[in-house]
């Protein structure tokens, strides 16, 4: 149970990782890139795929990210880097978390305040993060078919009402391309999530290629969803937050059966609950490893981090707009540093094989 098999990792890359990109991101991309929204997303996916490849190349040496840092820079520098990285993960967890909180309120409730509805998530996160990171592997085995069913259901119910001609002519939104690229950076940190998994993944030949292809397969589905989303809503896409809950509601059968698409939305919400907790889990793992893996530490850290995020979500309850503005604006540079530079530079770390 303490190891992640390559298959489980592939399930994460192909099925779980894309789910985080279909909530708020489509509307944000449409705001800047308009009908070209799939291009900035595709660029991010390609860059992340390349970085996933780089990170997975490190699997062979069998060492954890902390051990690699320690071997290269020594103990103290490694501790500093890993703590900074953990801090970034906690920071990166904030946006998906607030995004999900808002999503939960608007999709699942008509009346209940989001804070009340979403609070149990932090209990779940605390419980989840106290488990070994490798335990996630087994969760991905279960989540993969759920994510596939959810995504397939939403897409199947949506394609009928999508007018893909709305995506033409290509290039109409090129003016906002870089703005969209910059904004979307906050949603793409998958390669960084893989770094704390190093040393816990079983090696198999070609794992880097296979992993990258899986990630690209998931990316293709996410891009298809973006295209469908714009096909359904066209110019009004900008206002369509929580996209995947809306694209399928025009399915003709829904008038007779009720919101049958909610079944698939529930499935995707289940996957997202795990996805949102993953940066926190990775953060716990980093700190735990840097401070000597004491038995009580994961529980303590997971409770502490869940409490911090809960406090932040209370304080920022009505300030999602400001947070989004800050994270995708002034603070957006943090993302390339930790999601592009760190994974890319990790290739330069000393890779003597673990004994």
């Amino acid at each position, binding site marked *: 149970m303490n190891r992640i098999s390559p298959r489980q990792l592939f399930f994460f890359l192909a099925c779980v990782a894309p789910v985080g990109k279909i909530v708020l991101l489509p509307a944000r991309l449409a705001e800047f890139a308009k009908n070209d929204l799939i291009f900035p997303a595709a660029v991010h996916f390609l860059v992340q795929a390349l970085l996933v490849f780089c990170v997975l190349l490190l699997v062979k040496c069998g060492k954890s990210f902390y051990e690699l840092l320690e071997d290269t820079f020594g103990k103290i520098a490694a501790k500093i880097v890993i703590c900074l990285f953990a801090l970034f993960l906690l920071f990166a967890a904030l946006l998906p978390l607030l995004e999900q909180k808002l999503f939960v309120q608007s999709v699942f*409730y*008509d009346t209940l305040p989001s804070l009340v509805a*979403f609070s149990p998530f932090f209990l779940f996160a605390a419980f989840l993060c106290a488990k070994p990171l490798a335990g996630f592997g087994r969760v991905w085995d279960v989540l993969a078919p759920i994510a596939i069913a959810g995504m397939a259901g939403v897409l199947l119910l949506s394609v009928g009402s999508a007018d893909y001609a709305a995506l033409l002519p290509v290039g109409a939104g090129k003016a906002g391309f870089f703005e969209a690229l910059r904004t979307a950076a906050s949603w793409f940190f998958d390669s960084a999530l893989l770094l704390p998994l190093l040393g816990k993944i079983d090696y198999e030949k070609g794992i880097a290629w296979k992993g990258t292809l899986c990630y690209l397969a998931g990316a293709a589905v996410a891009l298809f969803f973006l295209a469908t989303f714009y096909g359904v809503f066209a110019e009004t896409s900008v206002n369509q937050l929580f996209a995947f809950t809306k694209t399928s509601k025009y399915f003709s059968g829904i*008038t007779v059966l*009720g919101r049958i698409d909610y079944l698939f939305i529930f499935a995707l919400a*289940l996957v997202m*609950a795990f996805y949102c907790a993953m940066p926190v889990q990775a953060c716990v793992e980093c700190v735990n490893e840097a401070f000597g893996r004491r038995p009580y530490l994961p529980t303590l850290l997971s409770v502490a981090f869940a409490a911090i995020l809960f406090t932040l979500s209370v304080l920022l309850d009505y300030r999602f707009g400001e947070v989004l503005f800050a994270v995708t604006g002034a603070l957006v540079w943090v993302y390339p540093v930790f999601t592009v530079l760190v994974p890319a530079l990790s290739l330069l770390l000393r890779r003597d094989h673990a004994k």
Partner: protein
Amino acid sequence: MKNVSKDLAKTTEALKKLLPAEDILTFSFRSEKTAFTCVFADPVTDKELLGEQVIRPLSRFAGEPKAEEVGRHITSPEMKKVRALDELAQEILAGNPAVLWEGMDEAIVTGTKKVFTRAIAEPSTDVAVKGPREGFIEDMKTNTSLIRRRFKTGELRIETAEVGRRSRTSVAVCYLDGTAEREVVDEVRAKLGEIDIDIVPDSSYLTHFLSSRPYSLVKQVGTTEKPDIFCAKLAEGRVGLIVDGSPIALTVPYLLIEDFQSSEDYFVPPYRATFTRLLRLFALLVAIYLPAFYVAAQLFKLQLFPVRLLLTIAGSIRDIPFSPSLEMLLVLLVLEVLNEASIRMPKYVGMALSVVGALVLGETAVSAGFVSTPAIIIIAFSGIGLYAVPNLIEQTSVLRLAMLLVAGSVGTYGIILLTAFCFLYLVTTENFRTPLFAPFSPLIGKDLRDSVIKYNLGSLPTRPKVLKSPNKRRLK
């Protein structure tokens, strides 16, 4: 005095001191040369057999009073020599009389135990239309004979252990040598050896000690009342336990999927078996989630209902004085009470109870405006659905209640989070180093062929990979 002495009177007296109960009787008789005393526990000894096989032949005994000579005259097929008084006392209490005689510091224990058995019948909890109808009974020997009859091979090992300081209950550990993983057998032995409890009235007592998470709601030890299922599990590489006095046998390692498989699945075409397994899964999911989603939708998101259904529901709940969650909880409570009462009541009252409960109570409660018709329909469907997987009722009924409470307080997202919590708990639970949620997590492709989907027997040439059997192939 610790051992049998050559002085018969002294030994008898010492045994009497060790076993002062009134139902421990002694019977003294003489042959031509030797004085004998038989010590036995009256309620559990077959006195007719004792007279036939022990007393009558020994009363004609004329040889040297040595254990071998005496033993040769006793006609019981089961006997052994015992020297220690403690051991002798235990044998007597188990129903095996002790034969003592003058001038010998050893006793002979004979197997003339009185056997109380009921007839072998089909268990009421696991009825099969096709396939064997035998069920285990309370007598361990009968149960082991039912197993032995199915395995005419020396590989079947039946090891007996005693558990319980006072009850000294016999537990038979059954496995196929070379098929069951050696580590699992050793772990079962070790766990049984560690149990320090006074009595073991039923096999369910052992499940607590055999589970890695004994306080968990999740079942971690398999149970069956049918010898054919038990043997099939042994053949897959599991280890089985039969407890004297219990008709329910245990098997380890346990996988959650086992309870979705019925013995009949193996006697019908695979597509039919697949369909019924999917049906069981669907019924169970509906039983757990339907009341919860109904409450969550009513309280927090009416959009979940189709418009026409919503109008019907709105009409039927208009005059109900309770909140949706309280209404559902009340109906659920009534169902649980009815269920509990109907199981415990005598059969002839049970019929009347179901009329009163289902018809009178349900009908009048709706017409009086206490509860709505949809609530009754949903709980009735949920109640029936739960019984599609009868071996998991204890767990699923609690889960259904938990889902309902969460739905009533935090709504749909609470249900999703509780589901996520359950998934996480299930995938991280292991017993006997075997993941409970296999073959789904960790995903084991080959084992999926006999999970929710059932392949043809010809497509199942190997034993389940997750059980790590050293003998992998079952179909040559």
